[in-house]
């Protein structure tokens, strides 16, 4: 028996009246200012009408994400010309296949909604996500939307109604749909709900969700009476609540993944809601995870049968009659869906969830849903316009046939017969031929070329002294050429990878102003020994070798996918820390600064990783290699993480050096002694918003019994004490409590680390400059609170640290009367089991003030310069640090002897400070300005000679029309750009840079676009600068100008200079 609320009946009746009125005015077709879209019901079922005409939705879920991009890509930020090319390409193909509507996750700007409607006749569902993936509420980004929160509800209602207001009269809008499987995202927590029995918790949350939807839809109807209101529900979950709480709902929208058919869905909707049904998502993936291959046929068969069922369920066919069409998920494969930020230029074949409805590749207990393979077209390469193409699959051709039929005008038997007569073999062959051709074009399976880049440059440089002495002849000129060629390989379906070759031509001699990748190709002078013959004296000769190492492997990575694990090999490709995977002590350093490594031709990170993903291996990671992060000793690392109940997670990590590296990090970074560490970590969610993290570490056990000295003072006299490392000195503990406070999120942390309980690289977040360290021999406390006020964030933090022992002083030894006072030497980490360096006594405080009205592009994300879309966003950071004690001695790697050398003296006690600001200004989508200002007083990281100096710097970049890029900096008394500059306390009175480039292609990417530019560097020198540049006062400055051309044909660009 049909159940229909009176309100809904009135609504339906009212709309029918309105349509009649509009039709009576003779307003039909695209000439309408806005289309009138209504639902219609009689005893034969439901229909959707557009301007009074039947409209069975033959739709696709559409989006445009190029290879190498992910969800952050914004087509609408591109030029109009490029957008038009993309739309004409995609919607042209759609039109050819008889598509008449799309749904898109991205909010398509009104003018483009109208464009695709007018040019291609395709209508658009406007789909505000209503906080589905987090929302900015009260200026604060909330990742898990709390639909019960009054402010959240008010904000979502207001913002969504504004969207409806914006689109209500836009030609091409079909209807409005709210959320996206929002019933699956009820993840917020609250005491009120948590106290309910578990089974009732989600239903309680769902009530908030659906009541909110109804409020929006009811108000939306007042704003846009000519457009139906719908929701995007996950299947039919909470259908009773929908019936109870959503009287304003016009069309039930649902994402349905039930396999080849939809089982009893029609009947359920008919009985419980009596509403028309549209599928906002459904479909089948085109990858067969059982056979590990692209499977166009199974996808096409499923889609054919699904549409056939829908047609049969449409109006007038003697069944429920409530199907009004659907949107196939999806138009084109998206290569970012699996992992979302990794492997963006490769199509992952990982199945990430299981669904028994997809019988063609389902195996009990195994995943079979391949997120990156749902397109009815495959993501191809870029065409001449820079538009990434869509290679139609068999499903496209099958649906083209299906969509040529109309379930309303064709008789039921006719369309069924037509669908059954579709020549699947022919269309299957067509799809396979396309696939083979595409593969032949794009990749030869075993080894294929994927792209590359070519950089050519011409350098002019000189110094003040050379110009003074030799005039124009004092200038030096040198050309440089470099190419990168990228290759992929996929010899089997579960083994794939890539590598890049670097090829050098001439190498421009930019040093010392700029140290750049490619210096391996500099000429090398060698002495050629001559064979003595008789009594004749023959002198050795010298020669320059100019053609060495012209080709090298720049990077390499490969992945073998097995059932329970993935095996990755990595060679100079980015790798991330494990800070969010239970690595509380930072044992796994991040290795993403490849540009910084390239300066010194370092090939880190290098190794293999086994990543468990199923069965007993799930949660297990094993990494091993000669340099798994930059500067690492050859080592093996093992991590296991899992959960204990719902609220506690834990992780165990062991790191074991198996040798010691014999090269410094960079030019002079000291090597580390061979060591080991084991950590254990737990994180418990105590109450709402409150979590406790606990960790323990045992490190450097090989140093037990190692002697060390210290100075003890008592009663005014000092004595040198010789002690040994005990087991207790290898232990460390750390606790961190995070909790809500003053409307923000606060934390307090305490740690104690024994003398040799060294961890790795602590996690630093939100731009902090607090001098955290992983070294042991400390007792440390820190606290902070992140406060959000609207779009403002205040983040004060403090750090208090005491070293467990004082650094040693240099005291001369003496012998008096046959009695030895051995004196004391500053420690260093080579000769002593530990040293007091960054772990010295510290009292630090900082305040960061941030203004960012667009929380979805986090201001402190590493690529925010590129991503930030706020019109204006900035921060101000202030840091003040007191170091009341000196340090022991830092070390540097001395290449001629291949060992570490100590500076021999420590850094003095010092108070330092730094103030900085980053400003991002986007006045419109054709201009972007970024400024970085900093001033302060900083200490060297090694050599204390020369003391600390005040510095100021201003750096900026302007991007105009996404084509012209002007960047540069001005620095005064700042360290040079390379790590060794600060390590050896090298500063320059003035440093200037100016770089202008014009992008010549449509990629609009400063690093990856084909471009031509000119760059000038200038540095004045004084006694604090390198002796070879200052020349005892003979030289005042150095400068160089480089004219460069970069041609990028879809591959690895040259490393960004660090100048």
């Amino acid at each position, binding site marked *: 028996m049909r159940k229909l609320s009176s309100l809904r009946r009135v609504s339906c009746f009212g709309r029918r009246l309105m349509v009649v009125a509009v039709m009576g005015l003779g307003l039909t077709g695209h000439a309408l200012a806005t289309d009138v879209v209504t639902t219609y019901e009689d005893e034969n079922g439901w229909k959707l009408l557009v301007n009074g005409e039947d409209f069975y939705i033959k739709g696709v879920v559409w989006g445009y994400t190029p290879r190498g991009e992910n969800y952050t890509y914004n087509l609408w930020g591109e030029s109009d010309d490029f957008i038009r090319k993309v739309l004409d390409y995609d919607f042209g193909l759609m039109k050819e296949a008889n598509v008449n509507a799309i749904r898109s996750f991205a909010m398509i700007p009104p003018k483009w909604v109208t464009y695709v409607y007018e040019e291609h006749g395709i209508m658009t569902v406007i789909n505000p996500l209503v906080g589905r993936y987090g929302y900015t509420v009260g200026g604060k980004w909330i990742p898990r939307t709390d639909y019960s929160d009054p402010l959240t509800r008010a904000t979502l209602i207001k913002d969504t109604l504004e969207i409806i207001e914006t689109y209500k009269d836009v030609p091409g809008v079909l209807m409005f749909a709210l959320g996206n499987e929002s019933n699956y995202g009820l993840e917020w927590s609250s005491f009120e709900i948590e*106290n309910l029995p578990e089974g009732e918790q989600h239903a309680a949350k769902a009530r908030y969700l659906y009541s909110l939807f109804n409020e929006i839809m009811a108000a939306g109807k007042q704003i846009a009476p000519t457009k139906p209101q719908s929701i995007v529900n996950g299947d039919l979950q909470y259908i009773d609540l929908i019936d109870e709480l959503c009287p304003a709902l016009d069309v039930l929208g649902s994402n349905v993944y039930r396999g080849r058919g939809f089982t009893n869905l029609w009947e359920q909707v008919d009985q419980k809601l009596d509403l028309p049904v549209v599928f906002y998502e459904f479909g089948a993936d085109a990858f067969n995870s059982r056979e590990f291959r692209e499977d166009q046929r199974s996808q096409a068969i499923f889609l054919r049968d699904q549409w056939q069922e829908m047609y049969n369920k449409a109006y007038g066919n003697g069944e429920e009659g409530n199907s009004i069409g659907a949107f196939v998920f999806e138009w084109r494969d998206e290569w970012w869906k699996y992992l979302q930020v990794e492997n963006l230029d490769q199509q992952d074949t990982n199945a990430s969830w299981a669904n028994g409805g997809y019988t063609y590749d389902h195996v009990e207990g195994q995943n079979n849903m391949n997120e990156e393979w749902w397109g009815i077209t495959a993501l191809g390469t870029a065409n001449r316009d820079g538009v990434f193409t869509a290679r139609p699959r068999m499903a496209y051709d099958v649906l083209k046939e299906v969509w040529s039929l109309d379930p309303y005008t064709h008789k039921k038997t006719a369309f069924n017969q037509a669908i059954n007569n579709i020549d699947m073999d022919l269309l299957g062959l067509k799809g396979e031929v396309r696939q083979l051709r595409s593969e032949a074009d794009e990749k030869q399976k075993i080894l294929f070329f994927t792209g590359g880049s070519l950089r050519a440059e011409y350098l002019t440089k000189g110094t003040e002294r050379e110009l003074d002495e030799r005039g124009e002849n004092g200038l030096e000129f040198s050309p440089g050429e470099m190419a990168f060629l990228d290759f992929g390989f996929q010899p089997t379906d579960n083994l794939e990878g890539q590598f890049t070759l670097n090829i050098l031509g001439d190498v421009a001699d930019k040093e010392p102003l700029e140290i750049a990748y490619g210096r391996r190709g500099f000429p090398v002078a060698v002495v050629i020994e001559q064979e003595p013959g008789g009594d004749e004296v023959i002198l050795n000769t010298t020669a320059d070798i100019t053609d060495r190492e012209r080709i090298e492997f720049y990077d390499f990575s490969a992945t073998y996918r097995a059932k329970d694990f993935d095996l990755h090999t990595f060679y100079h490709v980015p790798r991330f820390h494990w800070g969010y995977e239970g690595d509380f002590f930072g044992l796994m350093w991040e290795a993403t600064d490849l540009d910084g490594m390239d300066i010194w031709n370092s090939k880190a990170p290098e190794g293999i990783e086994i990543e468990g993903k199923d069965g007993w291996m799930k949660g297990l990671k094993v990494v091993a290699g000669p340099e798994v992060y930059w500067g690492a000793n050859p080592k093996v690392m093992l991590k296991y993480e899992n959960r204990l109940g719902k609220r506690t997670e834990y992780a165990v990590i062991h790191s074991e050096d198996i040798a010691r590296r014999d090269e410094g990090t960079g030019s002079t970074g000291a090597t580390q002694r061979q060591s080991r560490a084991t950590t254990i970590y737990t994180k*418990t969610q*105590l*109450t709402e918003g*409150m979590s*406790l993290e*606990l960790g*323990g570490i045992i490190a450097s056990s090989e140093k037990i019994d190692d*002697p060390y*000295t*210290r100075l*003890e003072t*008592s009663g005014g006299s*000092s*004595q*040198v*004490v*010789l*002690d*040994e490392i*005990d087991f*207790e*000195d290898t*232990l*460390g*503990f750390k*606790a961190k*409590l995070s909790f809500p406070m003053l409307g923000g999120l606060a934390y307090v942390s*305490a*740690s*104690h680390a*024994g*003398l040799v309980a060294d961890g790795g690289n602590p996690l630093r977040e939100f731009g902090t400059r607090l001098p955290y360290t992983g070294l042991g021999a400390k*007792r440390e406390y820190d606290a902070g609170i992140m406060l959000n006020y609207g779009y403002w964030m205040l983040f004060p933090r403090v750090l208090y640290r005491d070293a*467990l*022992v004082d650094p040693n002083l*240099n005291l*001369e*030894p*003496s*012998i*008096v009367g*046959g*009695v*030895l*006072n*051995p*004196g*004391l*030497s500053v420690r260093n980490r080579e000769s002593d089991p530990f040293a007091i360096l960054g772990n010295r006594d510290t009292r630090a405080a900082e305040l960061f003030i941030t203004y960012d009205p667009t929380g979805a592009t986090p201001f402190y994300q590493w690529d925010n310069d590129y991503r930030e879309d706020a019109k204006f966003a900035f921060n101000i950071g202030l840091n003040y640090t007191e170091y009341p004690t000196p340090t022991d001695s830092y070390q540097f790697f001395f290449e001629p002897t291949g060992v570490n050398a100590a500076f021999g003296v420590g850094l003095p006690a010092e108070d330092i400070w730094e103030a900085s600001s980053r400003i991002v200004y986007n006045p419109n989508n054709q201009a972007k300005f970024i400024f970085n200002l900093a001033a302060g007083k900083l200490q060297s990281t090694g050599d204390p000679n020369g003391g600390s100096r005040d510095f100021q710097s201003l750096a900026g970049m302007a991007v105009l029309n996404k084509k012209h890029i002007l960047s540069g900096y001005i620095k005064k008394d700042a360290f040079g750009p390379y790590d060794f500059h600060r390590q050896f306390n090298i500063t320059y009175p003035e440093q200037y840079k100016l770089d202008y480039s014009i992008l010549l292609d449509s990629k609009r990417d400063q690093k990856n676009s084909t471009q031509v530019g000119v760059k000038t560097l200038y540095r004045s020198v004084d006694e604090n600068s390198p002796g070879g540049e200052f020349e005892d006062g003979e030289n005042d400055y150095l400068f160089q100008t480089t004219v460069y051309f970069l041609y990028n044909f879809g591959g690895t660009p040259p490393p960004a200079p660090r100048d």
Partner: protein
Amino acid sequence: MSNRQIRQSNAGVNKLLVTVLGCATLLIAGCNEPDNNEGVVISSTPLPVDTILNLSCEDVGIFTETCVLDDPANPFIDTAIVEFDVNNEDAFNKFELANAIPAGPEGAKARVYFWATALARRPNGENQWYTARAFHELYDAQIQVTGFGDPIIQAQALRAYRSVLDNFFGSVTFFECCGNINPSGDPVPFSVPLNELTADHLYRTESTGWARLVPGDPLLTQSLLAEWGYTYQPATGPNFDNGIVSVNEG
């Protein structure tokens, strides 16, 4: 709030308290800060005055062995032995400390430790030569004190001298001399090849005043040097600064 809710709330607080207390206990238990009762005071270490030396290892005092740094009897393990800095001649250096070791037999053993330690820390010809001299002196001291020189020390001294020739043949050391010829009155530094000094110490008793390591006719010293692969043309008086050591061909 219902009773059930109150109980749950209390349970949460209890859990929090237990966890925080556990955490605090862990932190306190881990506070292993060294205190004044730990370690050994080494500010006043009497130097050995005897002449009996048990070698730390077979090659102690011979480049490239560093076992002296692990010898618990070595008083200089924790002593900073600062090399002479030509750019800072007035800075404290190893010679000042070495000169403070008591002269004569009572300082001989300490000198072996001192120079062997210097050699282990900074392998160079000068430290090797002074180590050889120290062994030589200790051998002489043993004879002076007990009337008997330990043949092991004698052999070690010879090996140390040979190491100077084998490993640091071209090295020199510096002496100062003759302030009277310098207008400023400051001593004038001059360099002396260590190979010459080595051969001279072995060849001529007067050069050290210590017992001969190669007893008997000095020609035996030349024979020994020849065995080692060197030819020595002895220095002649009065200055004995014209000896020549050459490496035998083949």
